[in-house]
């Protein structure tokens, strides 16, 4: 079982895995930003509060993803 965790965190393979991990997160952030922009530009089919709430959920998700990158990247 330790081999699995070592692949993820040590050596060249570990760095590669981290790179893939961060890349996936960045793609995820890009998708979220595009969708937020789409919501922003879309017709308002509900109250302003609901509209902004939907955007806010997207931004919260981006914050979570940035936190993940920090957790991986920072040597804590």
């Amino acid at each position, binding site marked *: *079982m*330790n081999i699995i*965790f*070592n692949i*993820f*965190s*040590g050596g060249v393979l*570990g760095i590669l895995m981290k790179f893939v*991990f961060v890349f*996936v*997160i960045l793609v*995820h952030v890009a*998708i*979220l930003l*595009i*969708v937020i922009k*789409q*919501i922003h530009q*879309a*017709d*308002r*089919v*509900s*109250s*302003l509060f609901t509209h902004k709430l*939907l955007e806010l*959920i*997207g931004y919260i*998700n981006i914050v*979570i*993803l940035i*936190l*993940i990158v920090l*957790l*991986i990247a920072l040597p*804590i």
Partner: protein
Amino acid sequence: MLDQPANKMDLVRHVLPRNDSRHWGSLVIYPQNVHFAFQKKSEKIYILTRRHFITNSGWILKAIFIMILPFIALIVMDAFLPDYFLQLTTGELFAGSNFSMINVLAVILLYYSFIITYVWTNYIVWFQNVYLITNERMIHTEFRLMSGTKVSEAPLDNIIDITQETYGLFPALFNYGNVKVQTATAMKSRFNFKQIPDPSWFRSVLYELVKIRTEGEP
């Protein structure tokens, strides 16, 4: 109601007496705070409808299952691999590797972040895909994720045929179905209201609104 005489508005009020929201926001009569691009000042929205909320049950159940999957895995692990479960919960499993609890936290956060995105995007697609019936026209705003929005519209005057379809167990059980509207344009295009709630009510109301619009009486 600047462009409509008072009696026409009374007739509309007879068909749609008050503002109402049904089926978890799938059908809203006289929706408040709704605006669309190129809306005329005199244009009033009578009905806002979208797919019945129950049509979201597929992705909602999937999301719930994915959400509880790690807990199911832990329960199974506890039942069949109790040693590994104990090592995992105490952190002993990572001993001797560079994998720390911070990494575990990152993986868990990423997992649930994907689920949030899955739920969020599916909800937005359902929420933003709307059909509007105004005093002048019917509009379909089709929200396509990552690729833009498609808007179709047809004037109420051009409606020549309204067909209602309710096929299947779920539509019969939860009272939703399709309403197809044929317009008298050169292309004889069809306007398809997909999986909308209460289709028979919608069909009759649309018929009355068209009649008021064209003839002035229901």
